């Protein structure tokens, strides 16, 4: 994982890493829960993002589990 800004590219890359996929395989507007994301992987992402400067609640991520919505949540 990188410490780059929270662009859709970075979010997609980080998500791909915990799902054992390539970033190209991650679909932005499909629920990540349908792409293999589970509770423990979500917690992993939230903790790492918060450790690199994000201020995001895992529970907010859980309610909107798509890359597109996370870009909005994390982007500002």
């Amino acid at each position: 994982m990188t410490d780059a800004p929270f662009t859709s590219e970075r979010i997609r890359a980080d998500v791909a890493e915990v799902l054992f996929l390539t970033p190209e395989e991650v679909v932005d507007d499909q629920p990540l829960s349908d792409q293999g994301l589970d509770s423990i992987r979500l917690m992993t992402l939230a903790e790492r993002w918060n450790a690199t400067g994000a201020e995001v609640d895992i529970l907010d991520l859980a309610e909107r589990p798509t890359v597109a919505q996370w870009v909005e949540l994390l982007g500002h």
Partner: protein
Amino acid sequence: MHAEEFDVVVVGGGPGGSTVATLVAMQGHRVLLLEKETFPRYQIGESLLPATVHGVCRLLGVTEEMEKAAFTVKRGGSFRWGTNPVPWNFLFAVSPELSGPTSTAYQVERMKFDEILLRNAAAKGVEVRENVAVGEVLEDPERVRGVRYTDADGCPREITAKYVVDASGNRTRLSGHAGGERVYSEHFKNLALFGYFEGGKRLPGADSGNILCAAFDEGWMWYIPLSDTLTSVGAVISSTRAQEIQGDESAREEALLGFVDRCEIVRGFLSEATRITTGTYGELRVRKDYSYANTRFWRPGMALVGDAACFIDPVFSTGVHLATYAGLLAARSINSVLSGAVAEDRAFAEFEGRYRREYGVFYEFLSAFYDMQGNEEGYFWKAKKVTSFDSSAMEAFVSLVGGVASGETALTDPDALVARFGNSSRSLASAVEATGDMSTASGERMRHLFGVPVVGGVMQEMNQIQRRGVLGSATGETPLLPGGLVPSDDGLAWAPPAPRTTPIPQENHEPPHP
């Protein structure tokens, strides 16, 4: 006398002993495990947590065997507890959408589970000897150096080892050699009376494999579905009831059925069930379920893991978790010292610090959890009210865990701790209320419960271990303890934390997230 030398001798072949033995042998060290009984053997403590199943069991390499054993799958615990008359759920997944194969754990028959772990230890290179009783610890003022035991043929044997691990359970006779003593919690001196039933009912739908814990006026009951038809049923009651239940089998039966009768939901579930009266599951057993911790978890040459070190009330299914967690920590410390990577003091300070922290966070959770039910009438519940905790008991707790982390400091003042536990109880009660009944839309979402600081505290290390099992090596851990170490890439030893280029936010300002 027959004398042999090993790197490590582990006393006790339960999950804690098997875990530490296997993870040390996997690093190529010579490990001997001595078990007093011949496996399979009966044991209580049947409900597992995800950190054990998806974290430790994966490290041990028994995932497939666990799947083959076809244990009952639980997605969490269901509780008839607190003010809600309807059971509510504590689920492992934050929401049903994000529930995956790793958001579950198992209910296990310990005869089967413990044997899987012990045979796996042997397969991974541990020398396993059963039916041997360890009588003596070899020690000098500097360190522990080994053990003496009598083998199955009555022949005395002496084992010298760089480390002795006491994993011999709650009735250990060795733990004092670590230089400390066992300190019991004044508030959680409970007894358990338990047996097995055929034909008990199940919770509906996806919750059918869950453990059910149900409070009643004199204590609470566990109801664990071990198979479609077999159920483990136990009553946890005050130790002041000891006389009534320690009589003969018929006195125990009358007592247990009396408790079932007073616990509405369990009474309903067992209305068409029959108690098993023959075989391993035919006995009604009594066990002290006192919560306790030893004042020393290690000394040079020796470490304590599992019930030999500490035990927390069974309500959260933590027995096997605390044992396998401690087994993992001890293995990391032993491996680090044997390879020369970390000095003994530092490696075992990490073992003891993490283990005590885990005991401490579960103790706070336990106190808050029992307090939620504390408005009930009756001696059992009144004695569990946090506001009834006296200073001497809180001081004993502080001496065992070194206080409770709060911001950047540790709370050690008894009054401040009582206030803190009271706050935890209120946050928990509000979250339970907001979550609502099981089998409802909100009741399947852990948004509120996972947000309670004390819940975050207990889930922190469990999540970390599970994450390592699920995602593999290098999960980028930061030190859990101030100035502490982190797991090595393979998870089997300790390493200094990697230098960071970006500043790490002070973790303690916010409660840790689950």
